[in-house]
């Protein structure tokens, strides 16, 4: 996406995103009758959120353009955030701890 991210600029994208957000929420409910997805599809669906979040995390931290990139500050902060997330289960503490860790790492490195 290019240009500045104002509401009018983003509206076409928002309409598409609205559609792909609303349809999975509404369609099964609208059908209302018994809605049986095949077992393999249900298992695939159940794996999707973890898969997409993991791929996105890896890409954000480890990939730049079409190559891998080594950013020690971000990798160390990611480990700290991961440990906090695992121990506390708190989204807020994870983000706060990750931000503090990245600032500290940048001061140290």
């Amino acid at each position, binding site marked *: *996406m290019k240009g*500045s*991210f104002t*509401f009018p*600029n*983003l*509206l*076409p*994208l*928002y309409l*598409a*995103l609205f559609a*792909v*957000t*609303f349809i*999975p*929420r*509404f*369609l*099964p*409910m*609208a*059908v*209302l009758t018994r*809605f049986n997805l095949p077992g393999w599809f*249900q298992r695939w*669906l159940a*794996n*999707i*959120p*973890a*898969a*997409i*979040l*993991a*791929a996105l*995390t*890896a*890409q*954000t*931290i*480890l*990939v730049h353009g*079409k*190559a891998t990139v080594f950013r020690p500050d971000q990798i160390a902060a*990611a480990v700290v*955030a*991961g440990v906090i*997330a695992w121990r506390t*289960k*708190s*989204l*807020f503490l*994870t*983000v706060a*701890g*990750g*931000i503090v*860790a*990245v600032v500290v790492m940048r001061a140290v490195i």
Partner: protein
Amino acid sequence: MKHTSALLSGCIRAAPIVLGYVPIGLAFGVLARSSGLTTGAVLGMSLMLYAGSAQFLAVGMIAGGAGFLPITIATFFINLRHLLMSAALAPHLRGHPLRKLAFFAHELTDESFALHSTAFQKGLCPSLGEMVSLNATAQIAWVASTVAGSLIGGAIPDPAALGLDFALPAMFIGLLSGRLTDRRQSLVALTAVILAVAGCWILPGNWLVVAAASVAAAAWAVKA
């Protein structure tokens, strides 16, 4: 009278969701602003999408320069889980007109689903009005806190100096950790990380995320 008390009861039952949404909403607003979205763009997104992880995903991809189609497909994928939630609630929602169900469905989130399905599990039968009131209270809290976060974000001159550029990856790590409920999910995540890193020189931009996630999810979709 009965109607008013149902609406009020929906508002009150939304309290735990509101408490959870406010800090995340504030964080989203600050992040979206530091990623270049105006306050109007944040407001529009919270009204139209109203989906926590999908909104973080979309902002991350918009800021990363991804195109229209990859953003739309990735958002669709991350929202697919709502299919199952919507299907699970369907048997309890028989007999309501579609336009009312559409309104209810738009505000179906992981958190509101958790409350509704627990209520049904306990054998309670809240009216549709009460459930919509619960949902609407939660969305108002989300919209207000994301807009507030965006206004706060606008007052911060250099977000990277405060480490705020790392808020989005940290948020993804937090959301991911909540999904790693068993060994299989951890293996899915590990596979997705490996594929995303290994495939980055083949696939441009954010097609990488969609492809790595679909393959990793499929690799572990075999029967237990």
